[in-house]
């Protein structure tokens, strides 16, 4: 085996290690994304922050109507 063939074999091994490393980092990022999506804000807060959501029947409002009937 010549020196040139040895050099090619070494580079192939490096590529394998590089691919494995990138794959590991990607998997860790995916796991973190799934975990953070579990702590989502309540729907009412999201509606208030995004867009111009207005009146809708919520439990809070239903309670108010119920007490006003007394």
């Amino acid at each position, binding site marked *: 085996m010549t020196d040139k063939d040895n050099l090619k074999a070494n580079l192939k091994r490096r590529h394998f290690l590089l691919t494995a490393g990138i794959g590991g980092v990607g998997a860790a990022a995916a796991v973190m994304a799934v975990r953070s999506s579990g702590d989502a804000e309540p729907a009412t*807060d999201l509606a208030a*922050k995004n867009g*111009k959501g207005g009146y809708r029947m919520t439990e809070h409002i239903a309670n*108010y*109507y119920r007490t*006003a*009937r007394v």
Partner: protein
Amino acid sequence: MARMKFICDAERCIECNGCVTACKNEHEVPWGVNRRRVVTINDGVPGERSMSVACMHCSDAPCMAVCPVDCFYRTDEGVVLHDKDLCIGCGYCFYACPFGAPQFPQAGAFGLRGKMDKCTFCAGGPEKNASEDEFRKYGRNRLAEGKLPLCAEVCSTKALLGGDADVLADIYRQRVTTRGKGADIWGWSTAYGRPDAPAQQPDAGGKS
């Protein structure tokens, strides 16, 4: 689509001014501006009535008609709001409004009016919901939070009602049919039972 309205039940209002205080506190309304106030007639004599008054979010609002810069707009729920970035503080809306809702802070030199301020039905303004700009100019946006105006929610006797007009009309109708109207509903007979009400009969089983 629900249409937002206020109704004040004058038979229930006790002039506690809780609605006025709650509004000022919730929206951090400056001194000299009252988005809501309680008006009393026949003060101190039989037949005294009080009523909490603010912007009534008219279906055909005269303030919208007279505004020279067209800064008013109506939301899908029928709430009349205005854009303070467009308002020039001319005061035409104040003269047009039959309820005295538009308020003007004395922000500048003598005779100079600031931007008009009024009840927003706790629905904020044209800025993004719950943003700092919206709070600074118009106060909190409770409607976007899934709540109703605080003045109506804190009312201890539920005299001031706010929300979907259909629901409020149903509540008010139920009250009127229960208590009657006119001179029948105040005085001793209301507080301690109606004299014409039939006496309660004991159960048949208790007579033995």
